[in-house]
């Protein structure tokens, strides 16, 4: 396997990690106004992703950075071509990020309600647009002989692109609902479970239609297998959610997202950014990649640092693995009730 192929696979891995991790925190943001009946509940919901959402987002930065360094032509064409779409995503991610920080800084229901609406919008918009982006990349976008995008923002909003957007939106919401079933207690947990089964009613048919259409037009034998496995994992996740097997349900939606990304990248191969104008204008793994020496240096950096990053991110999830309940949320700006139990986030609560 040459290094360009290695980096193509690594970028697919980074997108999988991004969708699996940020997928559930988008879902929590989308469900925030529907599941949280009062402010304490909404704070429980935000705090389930509080320590991890920003780490999850780093997977996107790494995917973008890896594309920039390993496939500069792909990066240039895609980021220039999707300029306004990426601006929308970036603005949504900026707003969403400050919402988490600002919402509890002023003790006023109106102040918090405004930031909560922004958390919803800032989570729903990127969740939709990532699907739109990938559902345009796989069939190809209009690129001229210089690999320059000749469409506009509306070119991306075709029916297949929008279907892809609805798939990521519903899948991330389902993934988030199942995550909340794992991380909350009592009534909130029951509501999260109900939300998961309801969201599954939309996510399962949408994803099945999208995968079928994708495989009919762009499929190959190998990706037919991953697409079928993605569908099986999703149906399994929905069944597990219905039976209250939260751990299995979360494993199922995580696997669905990994297999869906594998399917889309497999369908792309050997292209990275195909042209719908002419196949000759497509960017491929070979004509878009960096020089060999760059890829060698990058590969060493990735081999050394990826395990370190995975280890500390895994550790942060382990530290914050406890379920959260209303009693964990004390009054703002003052220390919580004294006691060894509240001092230790991994302590004996269950």
């Amino acid at each position, binding site marked *: 396997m040459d290094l360009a192929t290695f980096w193509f696979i690594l970028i697919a891995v980074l997108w999988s990690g991004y969708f699996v991790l940020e997928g559930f925190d988008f879902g929590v943001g989308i469900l925030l106004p529907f599941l949280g009946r009062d402010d304490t509940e909404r*704070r429980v919901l935000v705090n389930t992703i509080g320590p991890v959402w920003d780490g999850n987002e780093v997977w996107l930065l790494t995917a973008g950075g890896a594309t920039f360094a390993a496939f500069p032509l792909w990066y240039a064409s895609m980021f220039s071509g999707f300029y306004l779409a990426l601006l929308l995503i970036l603005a949504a991610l900026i707003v969403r990020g400050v919402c988490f920080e600002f919402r509890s800084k002023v003790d006023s229901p109106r102040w918090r309600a405004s930031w909560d609406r922004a958390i919803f919008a800032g989570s729903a918009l990127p969740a939709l647009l990532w699907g739109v982006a990938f559902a345009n990349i796989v069939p190809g976008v209009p690129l001229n002989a210089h690999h320059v995008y000749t469409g506009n923002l509306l070119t991306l909003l075709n029916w297949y692109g929008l279907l892809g957007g609805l798939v990521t939106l519903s899948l991330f919401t389902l993934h988030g609902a199942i995550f909340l079933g794992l991380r909350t207690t009592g009534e909130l947990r029951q509501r999260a479970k109900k939300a998961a089964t309801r969201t599954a009613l939309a996510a399962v048919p949408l994803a099945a239609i999208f995968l079928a259409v994708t495989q009919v037009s762009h499929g190959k034998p190998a990706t037919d297998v991953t697409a079928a496995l993605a569908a099986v994992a999703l149906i399994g996740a929905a069944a597990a959610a219905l039976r209250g097997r939260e751990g299995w349900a979360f494993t199922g939606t995580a696997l669905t997202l990994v297999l869906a990304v594998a399917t889309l990248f497999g369908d792309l191969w050997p292209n990275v950014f195909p042209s719908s104008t002419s196949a000759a204008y497509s960017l491929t793994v070979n004509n878009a990649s960096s020089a060999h020496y760059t890829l060698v240096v990058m590969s060493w950096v990735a081999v050394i640092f990826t395990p370190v990053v995975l280890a500390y991110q895994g550790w942060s999830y382990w530290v914050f693995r406890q379920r959260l309940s209303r009693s964990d949320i004390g009054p703002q700006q003052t220390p919580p009730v004294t006691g060894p139990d509240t001092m230790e986030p991994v302590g004996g609560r269950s």
Partner: protein
Amino acid sequence: MGRQPWTVFGLLTTAQSVSAGVTASSVIISLTVFTLLYAGLAAIAGWLTVRHVKEGAPVEAEQPGAPEPLPVFQY
């Protein structure tokens, strides 16, 4: 400004390094969006900072042995 007209001195001019396919109107839109967004965030952050300073230090923090709030529940 002082390095104009070069982006990479002696090798690449600013005119040469402009992205192909990105229109001037797109750049105006993004510049406007980012300027307004960050101006708004700066105003809110400034207001919160002033408010926080005026509130003064919390009394609880002065008690020896009082537990620190857990970072996990800060939101």
